């Protein structure tokens, strides 16, 4: 792994932290006062700052630092997280996200905005109450905010193409001093306290480091050492007087004691070299010179335990010579020992790996996952075919083959679920991004908006998630910009001045349904109609239902905004939204109530998914109806069938009427309506919530099928969601229940295509 890879990980992590940050802030905004929420928010910013620092991303560090400082005030209860405070913080989270993106992909951020926010954050940290109406963001910054941040003010790093900036490397604290400089001697009084040892510091190691600074003499004061039976083995009794001649000076000595100085008495004095002798004489201490070669102390593992014990003479020179021999022997011995330990250390390494593996993730090419998913799909089909041929050839049905097959089926299914789970992801990140969109538009339009999200954990294939963000963003913009009224107007209408936008995700009928509801004014049908007439979309005297008028907004180039605002001026209309949803194999519809708001409903396939389906026969064709859509199946009786109009029929089920839809007719499998008494009715619930009875000829059975997209080869086929291969090798089409239901309401399947083509 190199630094670039780590940097990539850092940005991934930033994304997670930013999501964490935002959801935490939103929770606080909702009145959550759990300290853990505040901590999580703090940690997110803190973590981004930490990583950014390591990569020298100074802009990000400075901003994160100011943000973190203010969050710390909240954490320590110095700052009450009121809505006004959180407004600043949410905006800061957005800027932090921008800075992160800019650091990754290059590009610039709105500097005026971040400067303004830095000032606001600092004001909050200083206990100033935020102004209710905030100052315009475009004011030129007078004070350079960078000066306030503790980040090292280096020259703005020249970021190269990869956006990678090397970590400044420092070679220790001290520059090499010229050799001819006078070398001072430090006299040190070092008296450890008990805590020094309790905290894992070790006097012997401190003295070792001290001896590395230069020539050292030492005297150990043992006067306070009590007799054995009176002593506390963990108490500090020894103290030391040390004299070290070093070009690192007093600062160098202090650095050695950096970690220990709170837990010891330390007195350091520098004395002139000329008077060293005198001073030493004055002290009259039997200073013991310290051996210069301490390398043996660094190699904890090497001992000559089985050899002759180390030979030590009081003559230091001889000791060093002997030491060299011994350490050579020791090296040989330790090498042998190392071999012996190899197995043991391998075992412990494995253990360590195991420990480190907890909660780890790997990144895999999507292609590989897709290949796996395809293969598993083939496996499922193959297994189904195998089962079928066994059933056909084995009449007694109790053989061990059958039992084995059942297990195989179970396993196959589990494998499939697991593989699908790899690609499935919750819509949460996309929903979280919408929160920002709402804030920004609310700011620009001066409206007060609350976004409520539901079903964030609904999972859908990654491809769908990736492509969802854009249309959703646009719809949210629309909902706030065009849907919601200004606060004053809302108040005048007796509504809560704060508008609500509700974003919901749920699974229904084997699809994911995403709903975007606002409590605004609803579609102004008069205006939409007029606009459509002006744009020659409809004839001036056209007679359109409310629903039809509402759906006009999906036509190309349609915009109801009187003036081109900052938002709708981007040249993207609802037609583009509709097209991107359709490109995903989805549908979008709108229902609106004047004065109460509009609901946009998107239904998207869980692509690549498997489906539990009911296999049915319609006009000699085999179709699969998603099981999730089916409420119940029933055998129609003649008395329950009622006709009305030219070709409409209703079926009465438990005293309520439900339109009867002939699937074969809708799909143009046959030209005449089938006799309901010859078939079976499937009561289905469509995405609009209404029930319909779908007429099919016969039910073959239920089974799990693998969805094979038709779109790649046949483009979108109206009324058909996808295809599958059955156990006997036949291809069956999977019914798009919602499309069939919609078609039964009079919108023909063809019309759908023409709209898509012109739209």
């Amino acid at each position, binding site marked *: 792994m190199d630094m670039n890879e780590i940097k990539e990980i850092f940005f991934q992590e930033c994304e997670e932290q930013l999501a964490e940050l935002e959801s935490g802030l939103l929770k606080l905004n909702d009145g959550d006062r759990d300290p853990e929420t505040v901590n999580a928010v703090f940690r997110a910013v803190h973590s981004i700052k930490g990583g950014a620092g390591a990569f020298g991303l100074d802009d990000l560090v400075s901003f994160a630092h100011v943000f973190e400082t203010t969050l710390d005030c909240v954490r320590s209860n110095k700052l009450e997280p009121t809505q006004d405070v959180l407004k600043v913080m949410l905006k800061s989270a957005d800027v932090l996200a921008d800075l992160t993106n800019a650091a990754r992909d290059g590009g610039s951020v709105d500097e005026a905005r971040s400067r303004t926010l830095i000032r606001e954050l600092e004001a909050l940290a200083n206990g100033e109450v935020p102004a209710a109406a905030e100052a315009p963001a475009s004011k030129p910054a007078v004070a350079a905010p960078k000066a306030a941040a503790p980040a090292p003010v280096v020259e703005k790093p020249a970021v190269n193409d990869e956006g990678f900036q090397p970590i400044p490397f420092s070679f220790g604290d001290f520059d090499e001093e010229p050799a001819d400089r006078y070398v001072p001697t430090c006299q040190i009084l070092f008296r450890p306290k008990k805590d020094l040892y309790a905290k894992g510091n*070790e006097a012997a190691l401190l003295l070792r480091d001290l001896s590395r600074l230069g020539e050292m003499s030492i005297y*150990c004061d043992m006067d306070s*050492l009590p*007799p054995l039976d009176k002593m506390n083995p963990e108490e500090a009794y*020894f103290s030391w007087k040390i004299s070290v001649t070093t070009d690192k000076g007093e600062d160098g000595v202090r650095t050695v004691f950096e970690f220990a100085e709170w837990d010891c008495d330390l007195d350091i004095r520098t004395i002139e070299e000329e008077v060293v002798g005198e001073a030493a004489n004055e002290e009259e201490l039997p200073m013991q010179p*310290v051996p210069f070669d301490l390398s043996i*102390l660094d190699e904890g593992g090497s*001992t000559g335990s089985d050899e002759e014990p*180390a030979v030590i003479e*009081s003559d230091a020179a001889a000791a060093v010579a002997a030491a060299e021999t011994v350490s050579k022997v020791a090296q040989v011995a330790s090498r042998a020992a190392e071999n012996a330990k190899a197995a043991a250390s391998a075992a412990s390494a494995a253990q360590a790996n195991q420990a480190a593996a907890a909660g780890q993730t790997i990144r895999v090419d999507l292609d590989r996952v897709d290949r796996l998913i395809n293969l598993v799909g083939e496996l499922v089909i193959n297994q189904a075919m195998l089962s079928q041929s066994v059933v056909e050839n084995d009449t007694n049905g109790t053989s061990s083959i059958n039992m084995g097959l059942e297990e195989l089926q179970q396993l196959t299914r589990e494998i499939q679920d697991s593989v699908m789970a790899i690609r499935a992801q919750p819509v949460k990140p996309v929903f979280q991004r919408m929160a920002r969109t709402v804030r920004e538009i609310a700011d620009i339009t001066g409206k007060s908006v609350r976004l409520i999200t539901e079903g964030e954990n609904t999972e859908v294939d990654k491809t769908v998630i990736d492509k969802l963000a854009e249309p959703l963003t646009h719809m949210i913009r629309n909902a706030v910009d065009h849907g919601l009224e200004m606060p004053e107007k809302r108040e005048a209408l007796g509504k809560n001045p704060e508008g609500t936008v509700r974003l919901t995700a749920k699974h229904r009928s084997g699809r994911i349904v995403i709903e975007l509801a606002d409590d605004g004014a609803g579609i102004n049908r008069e205006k939409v109609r007029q606009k459509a007439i002006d744009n020659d979309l409809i004839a001036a005297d056209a007679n359109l239902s409310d629903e039809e008028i509402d759906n006009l907004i999906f036509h190309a180039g349609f915009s109801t905004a009187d003036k081109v605002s900052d938002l709708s001026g981007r040249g993207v209309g609802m037609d583009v939204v509709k097209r991107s949803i359709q490109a995903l194999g989805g549908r979008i519809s709108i229902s609106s109530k004047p004065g109460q708001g509009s609901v946009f409903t998107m239904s998207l396939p869980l692509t690549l998914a498997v489906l539990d389906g009911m296999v049915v026969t319609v006009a000699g064709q085999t179709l699969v109806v998603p099981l999730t859509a089916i409420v119940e199946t029933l055998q129609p009786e003649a008395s329950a069938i009622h006709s009305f109009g030219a070709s409409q029929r209703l079926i009465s089920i438990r005293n309520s009427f439900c339109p009867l839809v002939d699937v074969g007719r809708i799909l143009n499998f046959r030209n005449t309506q089938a006799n309901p008494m010859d078939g079976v009715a499937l009561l289905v619930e469509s995405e609009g919530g209404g029930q319909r009875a779908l007429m099919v000829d016969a039910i073959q059975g239920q089974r799990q099928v693998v969805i094979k997209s038709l779109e790649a080869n046949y483009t979108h086929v109206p009324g058909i969601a996808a295809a599958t291969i059955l156990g006997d090798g036949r291809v069956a089409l999977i019914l798009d229940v919602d499309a069939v239901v919609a078609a039964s309401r009079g919108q023909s399947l063809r019309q759908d295509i023409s709209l898509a083509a012109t739209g």
Partner: protein
Amino acid sequence: MASKKAAQKSLSLAPVLDLNEATALHAQLMGLKGGPLVIDASAVERVGALCAQVLMAGAKSWEEDKQPFTFAKVSEPFMKTMQLIGVNIDHLLAQEARQ
């Protein structure tokens, strides 16, 4: 009853004489008090100041008891660390160790 003087006990020090070992070492020494003691420090890889304190307190107590307290074998790291922290044990080294 065997003479106490004859009952020379020996103590082998652990390889790592750190904070954790200080209490154990102290207890071991307390249990050996009253008779001559020979310490084998040949396996010592690391010795901290706390254990050095315990050993020196032991040496002091043995001296008060007029019993011999000697290091029969010492490892290189043990000896060097003692020198480093200014604890002179030359007078406690057994003849063989001093050679």
